[in-house]
């Protein structure tokens, strides 16, 4: 394996891992705030790593420039979307989940 293949493999494996973490967080966490918290960060990193692998695979090409731009915009927009969801949920009066409330969830 060339070093480039190893780098692509490592990036894809990391991206799949963080996407898996995001999916588990979305399924297992109790309410909207913790879910946006869990999904937005790890999903941003997972998609970013996968797109970085795409950019390295294409090498010095227009396609890798496009992939790099996608990474950039994903890092800008994904946390903003999570912020917007959390803020809208707070505005709608959704109470954050806490452990001392106990059996409600």
């Amino acid at each position: 394996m060339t070093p480039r293949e190893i780098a692509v493999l490592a990036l894809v494996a990391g991206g799949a891992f963080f996407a898996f973490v995001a999916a588990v967080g979305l399924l297992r966490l109790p309410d909207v705030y913790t879910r946006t918290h869990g999904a937005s960060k790890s999903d941003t990193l997972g998609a970013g790593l996968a797109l970085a692998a795409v950019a390295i695979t294409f090498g010095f090409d227009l396609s890798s420039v496009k992939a790099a731009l996608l990474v950039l915009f994903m890092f800008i927009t994904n946390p903003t979307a999570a912020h917007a969801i959390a803020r809208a949920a707070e505005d709608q009066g959704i109470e954050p989940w806490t452990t001392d409330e106990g059996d409600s969830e």
Partner: protein
Amino acid sequence: MSESTSEADLEAAETADDLQSYVESPIIMATVRVVSPFVFTYGLYLMFHGADSSGGGFQGGVVVATVMLMLGIAFGIDPLREWVGEATLVLVVAGGVAAFVAIGVGTVVAGGGFLDYSAYGIHHASKYGIEVVELFIGVIVAGTITGLFFAIDAGKDGGDNE
């Protein structure tokens, strides 16, 4: 448990009283300011790419309409609707349809079939013809989706108030 439900009911009544879907946030506004020109350009790129590659008027129109959705979410949907004006929106969609039909019928007038671009007799007629038609399809789709977004927002306080 009963306390918490009554509290939730109270809050629901409160929010129903002043039902405002707009939450001001400097983070969202700044991001929309930075991102929306790029999204608009990407929508146009998709429209013009439809002739010889993936993409096209429908996809590009949806992406351009996303700019309007982002502006509505960041700066408030009601101010955006007043700024755009519903008459302007209808005019844009109707103008797009009219331009599409005019191009299509124009080929018939020039002696070909409907949307038979080679009748215009220009270089690469079908490629440029498809690109112009895709552009107007994009205009129609973007206007329609923006209108649907406004319509959904207008129905938020309890049903059909047209």
